[in-house]
């Protein structure tokens, strides 16, 4: 079960329509009832305009995009542009209008769009999304790119089957992207959240990748040995572990605070708790010269490098790579080749 954080600074809206589970959970500082359904018939374009304005007035972030993606999804498209002109200008049925209103009302509570429409795209895949499982960030698309580049450059690739371990798979974005691009790859994925394990299994089935992935409900912090036993030496360890500083978690926007699993975000006071655990255990899981790919906070790379050099002799810090915004975001390490014992 995940904790819902209700800090005093958090503004809450009380809506009857969201569901019994939530009733009584929120006290409303500013009660706003959701906008009523329109009296006459309207077109999709009109619905778009209406909700964009309403989101703006209600302080909902990215009002234009929110409206855009929800209306498009209701009409069966990923984007408004992909839809026929006709569909946008003809009158919506009562059911369709109700559906749009229902979804947009959810967004009024600051539920992330990805949870509202229950899906999102990651690289070339479309994945199901469900609270509280962590929503993949754009930066993580680049993490997959790094792993793929190295996998393709490895001399052994092509003949042998390679295995990859993902710690903290969430919705399965990273694992499934790797599988989708590498027919030779097998993946073992772990997550401490039962919901995440379920969701990854669901996405794997939908993408017909279930045969090459094993998903285990394990907490890498407390069950590392169990994790090691579940996978024979892997050539790649990849993770987007919780890396936020505990203090920073308190200041996150409602989209994250109210809906996403805090355990997927909080990396302890220095954000390095889970990262250090991964790096400590890695030598036991990796084959020689196996690679580690981590997504981290921009402040982490030099700290990680120092720490590894002082504490994990079997690992070599290879490089730091930037994300699309030029922030240092990815750490690449490697397990050193074991020296032969000469006795």
């Amino acid at each position: 079960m995940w904790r819902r954080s209700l800090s005093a600074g958090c503004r809450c809206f009380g809506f009857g329509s969201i569901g019994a589970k939530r009733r009584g959970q929120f006290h409303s500082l500013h009660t706003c009832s959701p906008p009523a359904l329109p009296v006459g018939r309207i077109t999709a374009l009109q619905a778009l305009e209406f909700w964009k304005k309403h989101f703006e007035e209600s302080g909902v972030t990215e009002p234009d995009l929110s409206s855009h993606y929800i209306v498009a999804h209701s009409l069966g498209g990923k984007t408004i542009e992909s839809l026929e002109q006709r569909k946008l200008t003809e009158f919506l049925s009562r059911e369709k209008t109700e559906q749009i209103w229902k979804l947009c009302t959810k967004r009024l509570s600051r539920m992330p769009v990805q949870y509202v429409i229950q899906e999102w795209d990651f690289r070339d895949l479309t994945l199901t999304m469900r609270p509280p499982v962590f929503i993949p960030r754009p930066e993580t698309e680049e993490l997959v790119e790094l792993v793929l580049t190295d996998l393709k450059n490895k001399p052994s690739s092509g003949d042998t089957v390679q295995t990859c371990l993902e710690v903290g798979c969430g919705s399965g974005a990273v694992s499934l992207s790797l599988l989708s691009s590498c027919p030779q790859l097998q993946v073992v994925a772990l997550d401490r959240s039962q919901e995440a394990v379920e969701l990854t299994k669901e996405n794997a089935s939908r993408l017909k990748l279930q045969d090459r992935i094993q998903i285990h409900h394990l907490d890498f912090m407390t069950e590392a040995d169990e994790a090691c036993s579940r996978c024979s030496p892997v050539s790649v360890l990849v993770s987007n572990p919780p890396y936020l500083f505990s203090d920073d978690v308190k200041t996150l926007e409602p989209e994250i605070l109210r809906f996403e699993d805090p355990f997927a975000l909080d990396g302890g006071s220095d954000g390095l708790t889970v990262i250090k655990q991964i790096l400590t255990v890695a030598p036991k899981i990796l084959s020689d010269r196996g690679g580690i790919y981590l997504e981290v906070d921009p402040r982490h790379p030099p700290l990680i490098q120092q720490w590894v050099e002082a504490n994990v002799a079997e690992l070599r810090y290879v490089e730091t790579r930037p994300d699309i915004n030029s922030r240092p975001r990815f750490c690449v390490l490697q397990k050193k080749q074991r020296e032969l014992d000469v006795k």
Partner: protein
Amino acid sequence: MLKCGDMLVSRWLRLRSLCNRVCPHTRREERKGLLWRRTLIGHQFTGTLASSRPCHSDVGDLYQNECIQRYLQQLMQEYRYICQRLELPHISEADRRALIKKHTELLPLADVFTDIEEALKDQQEVSSLLLGSVGAKDEDKQLTELLKEEEAQISCKVLTLRKNLVKALVPIDPLDSSNVLLEVMAGRTTGGDICQQFTREMFDMYRGYAWFKNWDFEVYNYTPAEYGGLHHAAVRIAGIDVYKHLKHEGGTHRVQRIPEVGLSSRMQRIHTGTMTVIVLPQPVELDLHIDPKDLRIDTFRSRGAGGQSVNTTDSAVRVVHLPTGTVAECQQSRSQLQNRDTAMRMLRARLYQSMMGEEIKHRQTVRKQQVGERSQSDRIRTYNFSQDRVTDHRTGHVARDIKEFMRGGGALDNLISDVLENEEKQALLELVENRGNGRDLTNPD
């Protein structure tokens, strides 16, 4: 008793021998009022060209053109000269190589020429026989019919051969088989959104055309305007000979209508608007090397550390090539990485166009000098919804049933074929006129 066929054959042989006696009577034929024209190689043929299929104006018709005739003559002269030179005993290796190269280039043309000569000879024989059989008796009527048929066939063959000859002269655009980046942009009007509505319809039309031609239609960028109109969009179209078919779509398209939806529909008057189409050939990826250091990539950038601390649906990417200032942006996909890849492809196409730009500009300048100034703002085509017709101003081609036309199917394809043929003609005329100006043909190099 001879069989029917044998009878015909024996008559044919008899008439053929008659032919040699009939031939010299050309004066009589002229006085009969038949139309005769001199061809390049001195043969004569009837003016009553028996075409078994309807000809719509195409490059082949340029055969009659004086410049073309002169050009063909020049080429054949060149060919004969080369053949003579190659016969000479004392000729250097370098010269021989050069001559052989030119010979190989001209050989296909020379072959068609020879074929035409042969066909004309046959035709003359048949014509003579026919003339000789004027006023023939009944039993010869069947033979006359056969002869007429044969003459028609040969005429057709000659026509086709001549068209092929001319077509072979048309300069080939090496970019014809390329894929393209097609962009549509709404024009400006004083009020209302007629331009944006029209741009959206044009976008749909090209999407329909891509489907019709079995091409791949990949949207790179789409910036909608209000009320369902389109501000601008960029699409990659891939397939066979895409650039060849779409290159002449570039330019300003004009619309005239009484708008049905949008702001303008309140006033029931005929409105005019414009939109612009730009077609860029898309290069093979390898041709262009872009240094990552020369690029600035703009994406949604949060104030804090980004990453896990932010939830966003803003995946738009803009790529700027700093040295040239070329920009490409994309927000087509929900995935930021996909948008970045698409923006990069668009950037490459634009950079390539800049690279090629110099060459294209030169060609256009030469063309303008020949054909006369036509500024960018002149519309190439008008879509008149009120009068239900589409008019292309380069060829005068008029298409009806504008609703059908805007589906981007056969009607558009016909118009495009027409424009293509017209442009081929222009290109060829330009070529022969240039060649005709001061080139020394007795000294091929």
